[in-house]
């Protein structure tokens, strides 16, 4: 198994890439809304993602179960 430092060094760039994709997706949505002059009729998917990001931003997760928490969170979205 990897050490804490090896874990960061191995996966940091991929996590960086994935966050950039999320940022670009949210920007894409904002530009689309600006282009048509209105938001989506149902913004629950966007709201759900923002809530998920808030969950990830919490510094302490004693059970190290962020993925499990996110899956439970996304299960609420139809």
């Amino acid at each position, binding site marked *: 198994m990897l050490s804490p430092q090896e874990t960061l060094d191995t996966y940091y*760039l*991929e996590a960086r*890439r994935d966050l*950039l*994709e999320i940022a*670009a997706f949210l*920007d*894409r949505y904002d*530009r689309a809304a600006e282009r048509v002059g209105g938001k989506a009729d149902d913004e629950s998917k966007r709201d759900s993602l923002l809530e998920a990001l808030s969950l990830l931003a919490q510094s302490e997760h004693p059970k190290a179960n962020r993925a499990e928490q996110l899956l439970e969170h996304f299960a609420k979205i139809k």
Partner: protein
Amino acid sequence: MQIIQPHYHGIARTAQDYERMAMSGVVAVCEPAFWAGYDRRHPETFVDYFAQISEFEPTRAASFGIRHFCWVAVNPKEAENPELTQEVLRLMPEFFNKPNCLGVGETGLHKSTPNEIESLQAHVDMAMKHGQLVLIHTPHLADKAHGTKTVLEVLAGMDVDPDRIWIDHVEEQTIEPVLDAGYWAGMTLYPVTKCSPRRAVDILEKYPTDRLLVNSSADWGPSDPFTLQESIMEFRRRGHSLQEAVEIFHNNPCRFLGQNPKWDIKPITISEE
């Protein structure tokens, strides 16, 4: 759809990549001189490398009906050896006469050191004196914003024609100053460390596209020649027309590279969609 891959390091890739690119519509690739993964010690090593990309590599590409063009330069990662850089620069002009050589590249910056800046200036100066196009590499990751700013500052202090300079590897934080200064801007699509196909299409939708180039820069590291096709698919999926795709992924390379008369592939128009 006919596609041009403007930045591709063919010697690091397999014949199967050429075959699959040909089957996907790629009609031409352009191979800038690249870092070998280690610092070369001898000018003659560069001469052999330039011969490989100007003489042999076109025959590999031609086996699959793909046109192959090249650029010559000392990579910025090797600029910390100024004596070597000067000697290679002295030898480069003979390659400007090769029928597939389009200009000087990829020069640029890596860590933006004084030696790198001196090398960049010398490369650009040589290109301008010999009427060559220029392809400029901008740094990776955390060094990108500062390095791109430094590239623009260096160019601003020189007598250059922005129409003939392509600044590559731009991303969201660097594209505006490059376009504002009148240069061509390239987006390089990497699986992890550069722009992604979707982000590239976002940029294509946000900025005027007349000076934008998109490439895979596939090389010996984690890279993929088909990120370019992925970007085209994403562009089309968002409802952009085939002609709009042709303008960006075929005709824009023709317009920039066609400033060198050796580039004889012309922009195309789709008569019916």
